[in-house]
């Protein structure tokens, strides 16, 4: 679907992307995971044609570079910053963006209401965005990317600064889109989100791709083994084992055990082992 080949982008002397190569398959949810400044946003801006690479190629299968009008028609972007008009109402925002895509009046009205329902903003359709909470704006920012029913959607930190309720709604929507066969490129620095919605994850740091694969593959390759913590009163015992079931069955028969914790190595552990740093410092 989307192919980035050896993409380099410099801002002045700073190299934001140092030769990135990756491909996104049709219909998959592709995660870009990395700390602040890793180059996630730069990758997305490059992929959708807002930035031209200094070298390397960006290509949409069957369409060519992202600057062509055909690509634009099937491409939806929810930028990291809230790219919506504060002084327009929720419905006006959506209908305006629909108009840019040549949708008819009735089509954009219908679509705007359908999409507001999906992000649970239908009750605020006639309210100015300026009166919205941060989470509501985030959801509208996402809705605006979906107005023209794109086939590939770039979501740049769609859950930044939202409460658990909004986060849940957004993640549910992403899952629904995935079910509809929409290709999704999702950036985040929350590993649990990447784990929840992404089929494959690219771990990035300082403009470089560190690892790429399904969540399980990444953990298997870089996450290490399972960690079982057994507590007897104040005494903690950590057991690192490839066979956690044995440790558990033994511990449950021991009456002195007050608490048991099984920890599966996660993407955090993957990132830690790849960079020696934690994802969020």
């Amino acid at each position, binding site marked *: 679907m989307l192919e980035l080949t050896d993409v380099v982008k410099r801002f002045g002397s700073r190299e934001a992307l140092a030769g990135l190569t990756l491909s996104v398959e049709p219909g998959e949810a592709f995660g870009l995971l990395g700390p602040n400044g890793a180059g996630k946003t730069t990758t997305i801006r490059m992929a959708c044609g807002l930035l031209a690479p200094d070298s390397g190629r960006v290509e949409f299968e069957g369409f060519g570079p992202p600057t062509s009008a*055909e690509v634009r028609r099937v491409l939806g972007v929810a930028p990291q910053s809230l790219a919506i008009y504060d002084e327009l109402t929720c419905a006006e925002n959506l209908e305006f963006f629909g108009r840019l895509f040549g949708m008819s009046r009735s089509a954009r009205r219908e679509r705007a209401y359908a999409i507001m329902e999906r992000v649970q903003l239908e009750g605020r359709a006639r309210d100015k965005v300026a009166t919205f909470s941060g989470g509501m704006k985030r959801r509208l920012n996402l809705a605006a990317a979906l107005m023209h029913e794109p086939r590939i959607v770039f979501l740049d930190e769609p859950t930044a600064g939202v409460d658990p309720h909004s986060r849940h709604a957004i993640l549910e929507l992403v899952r629904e889109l995935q079910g509809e066969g929409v290709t999704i490129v999702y950036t985040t620095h929350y590993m649990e989100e990447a784990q929840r919605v992404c089929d494959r994850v690219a771990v990035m740091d300082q403009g470089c791709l560190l690892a790429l694969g399904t969540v399980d593959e990444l953990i298997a390759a870089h996450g290490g083994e399972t960690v079982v913590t057994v507590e007897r009163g104040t005494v903690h015992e950590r057991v690192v084992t490839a066979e956690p079931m044995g440790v558990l069955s033994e511990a449950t028969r021991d009456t002195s055990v007050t608490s048991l914790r099984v920890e599966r190595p996660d993407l955090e552990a993957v990132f830690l082992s790849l960079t020696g740093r934690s994802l969020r410092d």
Partner: protein
Amino acid sequence: MRVPLAIAIKDATLMRRDMTAFFFTVIFPLIVGILFGMIFAGPATGSGPAEAMTLGVVDLDRSEFTADLTSALDATEEIEVKAFASEAEAEDAVRRGEIPAAVVLAQGMEDSLDDVFTGAPVKVECIADPSRGAETGILQGVLTQTMFAQLFKSIAKPERLHTSLEQARESLLTTEGVNPVQRALFDQMIRSAEGLIDQQIDQTDAGTDDEGASVGGAFEFNPVDIQVRKAQRETSGAEPSSSFEITIPQAAGWALLGCVTGFGASIVRERQSGTLDRLVLAPVGRWQVLAGKALGCFLTALAVQLLLFVIGIAFLGVRPDSYPLLALAIVCSCAGFVGVMMVLAVISGTSDGAEGLTRGALIVMAMLGGAGIPLAFMPGWLRVASGASPFKWVIVALEGAVWRDASLGEMLVPCAVLLAIGVVGVAIGSSRMKWER
């Protein structure tokens, strides 16, 4: 055109809802146009009350009396005399608003003084501008007073008095139906009058104008008859017919300033918030995005100018010399300032400081261009310097169509300059536009 129009309508909506932008684009210009128009419409128009008023004098008699009268009028505190060779010239000057009134001292005026005692008053024709009632009122008062004094001085000259009385006696002798006793009686009265007047001459020779007037009043007859003729001011002349014809074009200048700073800032804001990315990401050319911005600015500017002129024409007595030329001037002004907006958007995009600086520069340009001080009140060198300000060309174009009675040829210069600013500005804007954050 569909996409640019959508962007234009969206931007106009945003502008309307943005209180600051709305204030500087609509409210402030209305204040300038209406409030300042009302202030200037007060007593400040024309010559101030403390200054001497100019009275046109057409001396057709060229006699000693009329010469004396003219210099006596000139000598008064209130009046300064301006001589005209003919009645037509003086009337033209009144029509053009150069002088509030003129008097015509008809041929044979001096000779007519002899008839004063037989009840025929000296007739003076006065041509006055009816729109300057207060000034002409004062002029008439001073004129009457001065003429009276001059008249008295003149007829008080012994030779003239004796001639007058001689004439009276002659008419007495020749009038039929008067019996000899009455004739003798009147003759005796005239003789004693001669004696009386001889005595009075000695006293009044040293008298001032005021005393002359009071002495005149004692005669209890009115020897001066001022006939006022109204000369309607030509409103289509090279003079504004009301102060609003000056302030409404100025208001239009301020409205353009508000409009271009608002739209320039909106491009910067869209770039910062990321909505510009959404516009660029739509399947439309970048030129369509720019065209949308330009169209929005143009239509908003046009709407505000129309609002200002409709209010001016409907309620404030603005009477454009030519509606087609006014339409041309408005369209060219809006087009020119689309260019200014584009340049502003490019400069403002470079840094935060640049935005404030360009706004400040624009305000100075607006003041310099005649949106602050009317161009007519500027010293010559400043008026030349103001040519560098696009606002000047807006004011020149609008004033040309409203009250300067400019021909199509004269309108071409400001209109061409404005269109050139528009073209160059759009060219700079579209080539230098910064699309990325």
